[in-house]
């Protein structure tokens, strides 16, 4: 363990940890835009600058490893002014259209502008005017709002190994681009969007309804697709799912796939079954019925078949889709109530 002092408080952390990690251990807040503990240290945004006793210039705390007896200052007037200036520069060619931005209320850049009280900007000048023309159905890319933190590029490389995007051009023209500036053509896992600290990457799937607001309810649950069992958080407004994301501190580290992140539309589909249906005549149509009628009919027919042909003339197919409790109750129904072991599910398919 390495012992050091941060803002006059002592802390000991693992060797190889960065100063930023140590500060977070003490719950000292250092602003960042490009930092994500799930990605390799990068040091791009320079907001996390700190002073180290004996060093002439500030260093970025997210890329500087701790050392024994190091004395670190994370907040003073000088650092405040440096950070404020960096933010001012970032905002100098930002569209500032927070009122209609998809990420308002859930935007690191907006939060920092608020904390540093940045209403005016000393650096007025040329603005970036990139055209948006990406026809992919999942991810909205507005490079005018990009702060070039590189998180999206890194997650796509380090985590997904897909490398669908990278930095392109220089200076004011710098942007994150697909090869030959074509439409995004990747796995659409949305990891890039989930780490973006601004409104540069948002989703077309929940455009216009995913923004943080008072009536959104958050429910932690499990993805309904494959067997990985990823943790997801459903964002719902009354009885409608409006967005899905995943917390970074869970088993799947917040990473999802295209189905888990964007494939929730079925829940609120108008095609959902909303009432029991009964075929009253052989070869007739399925017609709406009450629960009472449906349950009575099933109970009657099952009893009838069991009486005439024995319990083994009935069988049940359970499901890899429903809960443990429901599967348990289903097999129990067949074994204890009907009296047969004719019960199976889709594991073979």
């Amino acid at each position: 363990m390495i012992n050091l002092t941060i803002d006059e408080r002592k802390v000991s952390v693992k060797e190889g940890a960065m100063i930023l990690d140590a500060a977070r251990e003490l719950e000292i807040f250092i602003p960042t835009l490009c930092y994500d503990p799930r990605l390799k240290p990068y040091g791009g945004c320079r907001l996390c600058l700190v002073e180290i006793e004996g060093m002439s210039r500030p260093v970025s705390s997210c890329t500087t490893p701790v050392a024994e007896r190091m004395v670190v200052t994370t907040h003073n007037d000088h650092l405040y002014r440096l950070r404020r200036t960096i933010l001012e520069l970032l905002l100098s060619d930002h569209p500032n259209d927070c009122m209609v931005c998809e990420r308002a209320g859930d935007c690191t850049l907006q939060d920092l502008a608020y904390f540093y009280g940045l209403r005016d900007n000393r650096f007025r000048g040329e603005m970036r005017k990139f055209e948006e023309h990406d026809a992919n159905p999942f991810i909205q890319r507005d490079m005018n709002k990009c702060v070039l933190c590189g998180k999206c590029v890194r997650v796509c490389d380090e985590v997904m190994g897909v490398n669908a995007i990278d930095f392109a051009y220089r200076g004011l023209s710098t942007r994150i681009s697909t090869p030959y500036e074509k439409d995004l053509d990747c796995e659409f896992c949305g990891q890039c969007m989930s780490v973006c600290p601004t409104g540069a990457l948002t989703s077309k799937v929940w455009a216009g309804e995913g923004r943080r607001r008072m009536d959104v309810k958050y429910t932690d649950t499990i993805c309904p697709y494959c067997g990985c069992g990823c943790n997801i958080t459903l964002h719902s407004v009354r009885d409608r799912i409006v967005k899905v994301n995943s917390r970074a501190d869970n088993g799947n580290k917040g990473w999802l796939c295209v189905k888990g992140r964007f494939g929730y539309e079925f829940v609120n589909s108008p095609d959902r079954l909303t009432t029991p249906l009964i075929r009253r005549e052989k070869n007739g149509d399925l017609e709406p019925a009450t629960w009472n009628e449906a349950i009575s009919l099933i109970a009657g027919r099952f009893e009838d078949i069991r009486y005439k042909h024995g319990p083994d003339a009935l069988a049940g197919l359970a499901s890899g889709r429903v809960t443990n409790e429901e599967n348990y109750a289903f097999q129990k129904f067949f074994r204890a109530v009907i009296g047969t072991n004719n019960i199976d599910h889709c594991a073979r398919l």
Partner: protein
Amino acid sequence: MAGLSTVFGSGAMSNSIEEIEDAQTLFVIGSNTTEAHPDIAIRMKKAAKNGAKLIVADPRKIPLVQYADLWLRLRPGTDIALLNSMMHVILEENLHDPSFIEERTNGFDDFSRGLKEFTPELGEKISGVPKDDIIRAARMFASSERAGIYYTLGITQHTHGTNNVFSIANLALLTGNLGKESAGVNPLRGQNNVQGACDMGCTPDVLPGYQKVTDQKVREKFEEMWGRPIPDKVGLTSTDMIGAMIDGRLKGLYVMGENSVLSHAHMSHTIQALENLDFLVVQDIFLTETAKLADVVLPAASFAEKNGTFTNTERRVQRVRKAIQSPGEALDDLTIIGMLSSRMGYDHVRKIVQATGFQALSSGGRYAYPEQAFREVCFLSPAMAGMTYLRLAEKGLQWPCPDQDHPGTPFLFKDGFPKGRADFTRVSYEPSRELPDSEYPLVLTTGRNLYQYHTGTMTRKSKAIEAVAGQAYVEISSTDAEHVGIGNSEMVTVSSRRGAVSLQARVGNIVPPGVLYMPFHYAEAPANALTNSVLDPICRIPELKVCAVKIEKSG
């Protein structure tokens, strides 16, 4: 699962997802992991970046191949020849783990005699994998301290699927890759709660917790709790149910959340079977192809509309939480089953609920809330005895978790196998049942793609997903395409002895010459109209991964 239960006395992923990152060698066989289990593939890619060796065995050039150190492009259905010849090399070069074999296994001598004939030359002849690659794979796998095997239905959906699983288990036993971290035999389960459905006893031979229905003591325990006699005869598997419907032994079927028409092999056969029933009940969230055939359709709640638990592929039981109300009169499955149980005169729930130490708020055959059913499961299955909703709240728990203080089990067999010693099984190669001939000259194999899910009941409702993956397709090699005169994106007809479908051709290098590939998500061009319903004799799994077909330009 039957395969693994036979060998180890337990059938599930032996190790955890998180451990993948620390493996030294990963052997992925019959699993298109990046598309079917994307989150697990993330770990595999991370492991490869950390320096782990990645061996991929698959006839298709699946996306994982680009991260692999070695790609073994075997012919569909020849896994045993490949695995046996790898093990032949391991024995020949003394790369096996004699102390593990000595201390923890049975049947090594007979098994090793069976490997004699499987030289790398024979392996190459049958599987098409160059013998040098077989030797390299054997060395790569056997020379690392922690080597894990990962597989899915590419291994099991064959007439010799159980033997494939035995063969995989043999490889792990031979190299001592069980009972430690970042190793093991790891079947990746394809659905959110298919592991749970197995754990809950939704199979014809076992009660919850893999307790055999043929065991009288087990039955007595359940009978006392449930207050009803339990039949001692093993029931029908889902695939055998189809036959029993056709010959009239089965009269009534109750399907909860399965689209059998599209998911079973040989679709016209499945439809004929369902139509032959006197009475079919389907409980689902949509009017699926199967529900359309039903006499009664019951509207169920989706995952977002209920409380409960799912068990993922690494045996982790996790909480499912209700976010919204169901549409219209749809009800969760637990409530529906409770209503039906009560109506059929079952009223034992109150007594059970009291026995498990819960307040008896329920009445008749109904549970008042899901945790009552969960408590009952945990009361009856020792591997889950230590679980409660409270303990599951944060990260879930991996079974076995036998008591309230047990932290759960990330990897199995640390202190031995449930049945004591694990068995080697002598496995010989048998070709798939339906091989190409002059009339049907190509092999069809089936699977999933990244965007759609299973029979598409859920994903096909998503406009964005449909925009990128809304069209059914068949993959064909450029060689075969040229031979038949098919261009990319042209409409083609693929037919087998059982049916024909029309869909778009994707010409490329993903499949090798002689092989076609179709995802089975698309009702308008169902892959299972073509597949062969012939079954593995032990597991009763249909041979969905190999059948003979022909392809023509649509007229």
